[in-house]
């Protein structure tokens, strides 16, 4: 099984990521306000919140697409604030994108080879090709290996993004809505992959809207709303939190007020 070889030694409760007071603005919009959390190695952290809450922006700050106005991102003990995405990739951070970004004119295999070649382990083409095959079989794309990435359907493209990220053999994996648009069977399949990856020792942060799934798989959950952390805890704790329910379904009091008017 490929996940065995992905494992890295875990040392007690070492923190793989510390996000400290991260703040990010876009023009007048306050996208993130003072976001702070620590992530222990080997956990799955669920990141939830309504549309536009700043979840993807947080990912973009963690992996260096945006530099934050304030705060720090410490990855595996190193301050990586303001570093470029490729520098973080080389340090062992991989991610998938909310809107899939396949390299369309390259084959599925080549897409994954890019991940293996330029990620943390810096493989040669030949070795990378082997890794690509393994990882593609692991995510269930073994049969499409020589197709152009552009010709895959959305489910397959999501798996391809996953495979590309895994081929880099990261320490930390950021998953941005890998379940969105999948049917229940496909969601189950993907969750199974995610659990196996975690069991292989890779730490995961996942942004997800499919609640049943994220509640089932996460060790801990952070809820963002308007760029602020409004709740944090185990899935049970979070799902009981009135603020979370409010953030998702809207304010019942507000609704009542509107009805009375």
């Amino acid at each position, binding site marked *: 099984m490929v996940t065995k070889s992905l494992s890295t030694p875990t040392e007690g409760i070492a923190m793989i990521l510390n996000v400290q007071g991260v703040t990010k603005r876009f023009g007048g919009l306050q996208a993130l306000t003072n976001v702070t959390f620590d992530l222990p190695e080997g956990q799955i952290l669920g990141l939830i919140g*309504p549309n536009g809450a700043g979840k993807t922006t947080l990912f973009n700050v963690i992996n260096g697409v945006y530099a934050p106005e304030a705060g720090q991102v410490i990855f595996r003990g190193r301050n990586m604030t303001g570093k470029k995405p490729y520098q973080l990739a080389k340090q062992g951070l991989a991610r998938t994108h909310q809107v899939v970004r396949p390299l369309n004119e390259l084959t599925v295999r080549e897409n994954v080879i890019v991940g293996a070649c330029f990620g943390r382990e810096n493989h040669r083409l030949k070795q990378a090709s082997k890794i690509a095959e393994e990882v593609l079989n692991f995510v269930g794309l073994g049969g499409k290996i020589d197709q152009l990435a552009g010709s895959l359907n959305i489910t397959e493209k999501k798996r391809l993004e996953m495979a590309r990220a895994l081929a880099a053999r990261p320490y930390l994996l950021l998953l941005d809505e890998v379940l969105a648009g999948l049917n229940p069977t496909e969601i189950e399949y993907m969750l199974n992959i995610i659990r196996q990856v975690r069991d292989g020792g890779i730490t995961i942060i996942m942004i997800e809207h499919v609640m049943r799934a994220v509640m089932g798989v996460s060790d801990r959950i952070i809820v963002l709303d308007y760029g602020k952390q409004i709740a944090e805890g185990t899935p049970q704790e979070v799902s009981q939190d009135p603020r979370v329910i409010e953030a998702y379904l809207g304010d019942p009091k*507000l*609704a009542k007020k509107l009805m009375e008017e």
Partner: protein
Amino acid sequence: MAMLEVRDLEAGYGEVKILWGVNLSLQEGQLTALVGSNGAGKTTVLRSVMNQVRPWGGSIYFLGREVNRISAHEKAAMGLILVPEARQLFTDMTVVENLEMGASSSRALKHYKQNLERVYTLFPRLKERYHQKAGTLSGGEQQMLAIARGLMADPIVLMIDELSLGLAPLLTIQLFSTLKQLRAEGLTILLVEQNVQTALSISDYGYVLSEGRTHLEGPARKLLNDPQVRTAYLGV
């Protein structure tokens, strides 16, 4: 007669199918809500109704006429107006210019003066800032301008995508009550929202979209208390 009717709509991007059979029917003078979680395909419904995404299958009727192949600007000229997601204002142009651009069909031009006055009454803030560039407005003001621009087009049916997205609760209340007022004046409105409770609380009728299909429908108050809606969202 239904003002806008969507039957078995199918659509997608590239080879990816997003909508698998959407049905909607807007009754005259009613406020209808289309709700659904992120990624359910709400925006795609609106985009295909306007032909910004070409429908793959199904039919769209506006005022009883089949309009599948009619381009967006012609539909707008007929009075079918979409206030798009993320506002899509003309950010380099002033507030009043944005409003002027709203009234670009000959239909809308006829009522330009009245509509402008009505919009300024609804949103006095816009009158104060009429000479400011739209891009420099706050999020709430931008949303007001987006709705106002839509109203300037003299809509017969007004569709609004994600009205409350990124807005503070107080502003949301304000805008929702404006919608109630417009409905009271007889405008037919389709409200597309992620925020279920608030959206359903002001609507007459509601549809719940899930995985590209209309999943549930019914009078808004009934849906509001339907446990299935909650399940569809939180999964708990």
